[in-house]
């Protein structure tokens, strides 16, 4: 009874993991060259920034909020870093901390608007999205190349792993972020308060929890994560550009939700989020290996795979849940 009930909390997570493996196996059977460690590692390399920003999003969804400004914030951070590095000739030691602060402050302000002025998070962050992207264009409408040696190093350095495979530094940053988020969510009061707020904000307040502070801090943390993702993205792209990371917020939200964190708040797993990102990565990789789809079929195929995945996940969870009540 107990063992089963412990499982129940993580049903979603297990299923996500399982389905990921199934998809990966499918790819390996269908396409030569798919079954290799590097293909898997590439999913990390190419999605490091998405993992980081999705972690921030996980926090936000846990408290029942939403943030759709993250893609634009990432673009702004890239643009601003590029501008400071290339035009003002500041060093990365100054630029990187400054960017993290900019991101956190951006999140903080949004959090204040959301909590103290009671404006709906969707709208605040929509305005934030317009603003951040708009600011990119104010800085430059063209791309700005980053030539800073440190950034170049981060962009091109590959940490060798056994079997002739490698990862980038960004992957390590992403993994560290996951570990930190896991710790915060499960082993700190701040993290637990976030879950309580997502469960029922009014109750959390009446239980004497610091709701205001936690909520604002969560948005700040999310801003920080976006900034970190922005920095990783600038390592990845080595440029600032106003059209970077368009629509990334939807990818992030989808990853988090697929990973078992519902938008209604109160429940959420960072490890789930990681798999949510990887699921999307594997779907994309499948389509790239397929290699004959036209543009529209690509879209339809992505949506179809996503749909099959989500429906399967949902049906299995629903069955598990009903079986649980029988046990």
């Amino acid at each position: 009874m107990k063992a089963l009930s412990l499982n129940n909390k993580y049903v979603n997570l297990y299923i996500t993991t399982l389905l990921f493996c199934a998809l990966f196996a499918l790819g390996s059977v269908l396409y030569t060259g798919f079954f290799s460690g590097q293909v898997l590692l590439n999913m990390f390399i190419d999605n490091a920034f998405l993992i980081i920003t999705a972690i921030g999003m996980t926090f936000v969804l846990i408290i029942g909020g939403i943030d759709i400004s993250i893609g634009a914030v990432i673009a702004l951070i890239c643009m601003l870093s590029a501008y400071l590095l290339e035009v003002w000739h500041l060093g990365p030691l100054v630029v990187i901390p400054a960017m993290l602060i900019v991101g956190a402050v951006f999140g903080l302000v949004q959090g204040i608007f959301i909590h103290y002025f009671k404006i709906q998070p969707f709208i605040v962050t929509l305005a934030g999205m317009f603003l951040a992207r708009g600011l990119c264009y104010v800085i430059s409408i063209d791309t700005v190349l980053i030539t800073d040696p440190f950034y170049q190093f981060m962009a091109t350095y590959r940490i060798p792993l056994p079997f002739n495979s490698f990862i980038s530094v960004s992957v390590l940053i992403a993994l560290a972020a996951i570990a930190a988020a896991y710790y915060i969510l499960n082993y700190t009061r701040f993290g637990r308060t976030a879950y309580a707020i997502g469960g029922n904000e009014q109750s959390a307040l009446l239980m004497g929890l610091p709701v205001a502070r936690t909520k604002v801090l969560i948005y700040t943390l999310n801003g920080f994560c976006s900034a970190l993702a922005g920095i990783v993205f600038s390592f990845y792209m080595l440029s600032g550009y106003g059209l970077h990371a368009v629509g990334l917020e939807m990818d992030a939200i989808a990853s988090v939700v697929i990973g078992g964190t519902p938008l209604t708040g109160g429940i959420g797993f960072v490890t789930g989020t990681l798999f949510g990102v990887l699921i999307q990565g594997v779907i994309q990789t499948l389509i790239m290996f397929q290699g004959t789809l036209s543009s529209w079929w690509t879209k339809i195929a992505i949506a179809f795979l996503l749909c099959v995945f989500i429906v399967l996940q949902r049906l299995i969870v629903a069955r598990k849940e009903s079986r649980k009540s029988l046990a």
Partner: protein
Amino acid sequence: MTGGSGFTFLEYPIHHDFSPEGKVPVMSSILTAKGICKYFPGVKALQNVDFELQAGEIHCLMGENGAGKSTLIKVLTGVEVSDAGEVCLERKKIAPSSPQQAQQLGISTVYQEVNLCLNLSVAENIFIGREPRKYCGIDWKEINRRSRVLLANMNLDIDVTQPLGRYSVAIQQMVAIARALDISAKVLILDEPTSSLDATEVNKLFEVMQKLKQQGLGIIFVTHFIEQVYAVSDRITILRNGELVGVYDTAALPRVQLIAKMMGKAFDGFEASIKKTAAGSEAEEHAGFLAVRGLGCRGSISPFDLEVNNGEVLGIVGLLGSGRTELARIIFGIDRADSGEVLIKGQKVKLVCPADAIRHGLAYCPENRKTEGIIDTLSVRENIILALQAKRGWGKYIPRKKQEEIANKYVNLLRIKTAGLEQLVGNLSGGNQQKVILARWLITMPSLLILDEPTRGIDVGTKAEIQKLIRALAAEGMAVIFISSELDESIRCCDRMAVLRDRSKIAELSGQEIEEQVIMQTIAGV
């Protein structure tokens, strides 16, 4: 504390400080409130109310539904900011602006509705905000261990790692109490903590309260159960319509007077007024309305047979968690049965969702009004007509005039205290919300009315009215299934009783067997 206007009619002498001998129990006011006013649009919830709590006493706060008890508590604990007046803790003026601050000041509170997080585990609900730590993180093992101990003290043995939402309101209520008790505080406030508990749990709670009282805590206790008031309290403060009626020594205030003071008029007693209209003879001629054969669902309730006749009130009794609510839900089609069948007027029917059940003339007033009952940001009128409208379908809209007529009728009948029909239900007091839900189902004129704890949180006066109403409805031929944790109430209302234990039906009682001793023995299985 020099007698202001509000103190002139205090009938109880207030002791200041401690007596020189030091042997007599030390009586000192720990929490005082003076001249508290709180207005909501259209409602004067509190008007110039004074309140005083002493260390080492259990102080009952009494009043009808909507008298302002919960509002006073909310003002004391910083949930609501008062429009006038001041609050002092140990003579120091405090102005808690949030429950968090109140907690830090030493006021620990169980609010009226269960205010816990259903998504978190039972253990976490008890400890969140003050988790024990180890190394540099929360010590989960310790939390689970200590919660088990705490709950065991209250005779509750449940899996504390499960989300709280899995458990019934009663259990949630006990977890809320456990949380409040564990916060070592100066003042403990309990707002209707016993509304869905039954005798054993209540007694256990009282033991703990007495112990805390010995330790010098001041306890504010709100309840509508007169027996409980006399069982534990030292003093009583009575509110009526947001105004202070007076402060009394419990021992010196007869029950009848207490009720009279709450209602503002003499009360003709409730025992006498309810006469089982047709305990035996007449009921026989009524046909059976609903018959259940072997209905059950693995893991929730084992298969049972049940028959309810027109014109009869069937009580379901059992201990906490014995499956009463499950039984009701399965009949009403909320949970799906995996065996058995339901016959209505001899016809086999399939009830797979509440809408089906309603179409067949059933109605179910759920036990958890906050999550399953009220639609909190709709108005009183809309909440009342909702089920009737759903029964009629979306096309046959009840004209606005008619809606108001119906709603008004029931607002008066059940004495729902509201600023108007367009008041949001969420703004009503707990008891009045319960009445609104009751009204919602009464107006659908069902053939079978299932009531799960219908009088939860309802004041004595109205409770008697409701019991009378139920009997009257039965007399008119309605079949009623009545579930209540209050045995007296069940005995008073029911013609027949089904007894549940461990999620299965073990006996049926009727006629002379409906008597406290017999029921208790059946439940206990001796």
